[in-house]
């Protein structure tokens, strides 16, 4: 079944066209990696698919639901791990998890939260305020949020930045788990070495235009 399908999406900011005529289809169980230089429009495309922004032109469907009309249902089944970790500085890790999941309509038990925190390796800091967290720890906590939410569609914006080797492995492990449970993953990254092992399809976004590239081309460095 098709998880993400967008047709002819364009987006302009003021006078500048950030995305031009993007069409993309991602099946369930697929991980699509979006490469491209800075300012190519990767984050904008993810934000549009995450129902945070409305495209200037074009339409898209997620899990067969219209992205402009059935946003609430899409949101309940989708998770966007963005550049900002969506965490409150004055709450501790557990409170942040409980709050974020409560807004999604989920009530994880204390044990579930503890397990997720342990799995991402910050179980020891569960009672610490986020204010004192490092960028990598914040990223891990956001990942723990996604683990508890178990979304069908996962959108990741630069998932490997700020993560160390162990953190990268946890992230990849989680992505594999989602794929094995028939979830779909769309991630933007410029780190093709870290992304390659889990990528099933890849695309190059440049100056607002999307071009699909083969996995072989991904291995050779000439593209970058």
């Amino acid at each position: 079944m098709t998880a993400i399908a967008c047709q002819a999406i364009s987006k302009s900011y003021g006078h500048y066209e950030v995305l031009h005529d993007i069409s993309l289809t991602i099946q369930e169980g697929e991980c699509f990696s979006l490469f491209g230089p800075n300012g190519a429009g990767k984050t904008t495309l993810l934000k549009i698919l995450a129902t945070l922004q409305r495209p200037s032109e074009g339409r898209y469907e997620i899990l067969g639901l219209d992205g402009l009309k059935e946003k609430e249902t899409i949101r309940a089944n989708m998770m966007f791990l963005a550049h900002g970790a969506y965490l409150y500085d004055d709450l501790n890790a557990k409170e942040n998890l409980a709050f974020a999941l409560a807004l999604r309509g989920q009530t994880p038990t204390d044990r579930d939260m503890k397990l997720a925190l342990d799995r991402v390796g910050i179980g020891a800091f569960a009672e610490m305020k986020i204010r004192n967290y490092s960028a990598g720890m914040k990223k891990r906590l956001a990942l723990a949020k996604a683990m508890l939410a178990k979304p069908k569609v996962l959108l990741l914006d630069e998932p490997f930045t700020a993560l160390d080797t162990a953190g990268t492995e946890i992230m990849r492990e989680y992505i594999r788990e989602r794929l094995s449970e028939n979830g779909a993953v769309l991630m933007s990254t410029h780190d093709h070495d870290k992304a390659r092992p889990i990528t099933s399809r890849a695309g190059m976004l440049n100056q607002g235009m999307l071009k699909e590239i083969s996995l072989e081309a991904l291995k050779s460095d000439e593209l970058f």
Partner: protein
Amino acid sequence: MIIHRVIRKVQRFQGWFGGGAALCIIAGLYIGLIGSPPDYYQGEVVRIMYVHVPLAHTSLFAYIVLSIGSMWYLWKRDPIVDNMCHAVAAIGAIFTTLALATGMIWGKPTWNTWWTWDARLTSYTIMLMILIGYLMLRTFIDDSEKEARYAAVLAILGLVDLPIIHFSVEWWRTLHQPQSISMRGVSISSGILIPLMCMSIGMSLLFSYMLMVRTQLLYLDRLLHAKKGRLMSQFHMSKTDP
């Protein structure tokens, strides 16, 4: 979409609106300045009314058009309606400013004061502030879709607020300045009515004409910039792509 067809149809008669506005205003000016008798109480000063009252009515009309357009936009998300709202806000702000200015000039000889915290004057001033806030808000947003949405929300809130503002100022004024200043003795006789009607119709036509011109202006501006932007990104693409 329907609105596009309507706009195109109306746009075809743009010249008629302009010409009609010019004729009505010239006729109104002639009758108002030369052809009509002075008022018994106010004398020649009553002639200010022929320019002040149509301006005031039209600015109110502009606000109503703005809020209906905003609701329409939130419902249909049609960019041309947003261009129309943007246009009508600027025109409405100018009409409101001029209505206030002519009102002040009228107030000096009749009430012997430039300004009074009269309910109507005060609510017009607040309406002007809302319109200016609206125009400022639009300059502070980069995403045109978001700009249109936020502007529409502000316009609708203002529409709900204006009657409440008017009533509250009215109550407040009757508490503090009991009836010392009022429009006295302007009985609407035919001598006043004819130039007033001419100018009112002329101003409404002029407003519609200006609205069409400005909507067209904003639309063309958007079109040109979109094309330029697309051309620019294609240009970059051809340079970076081997």
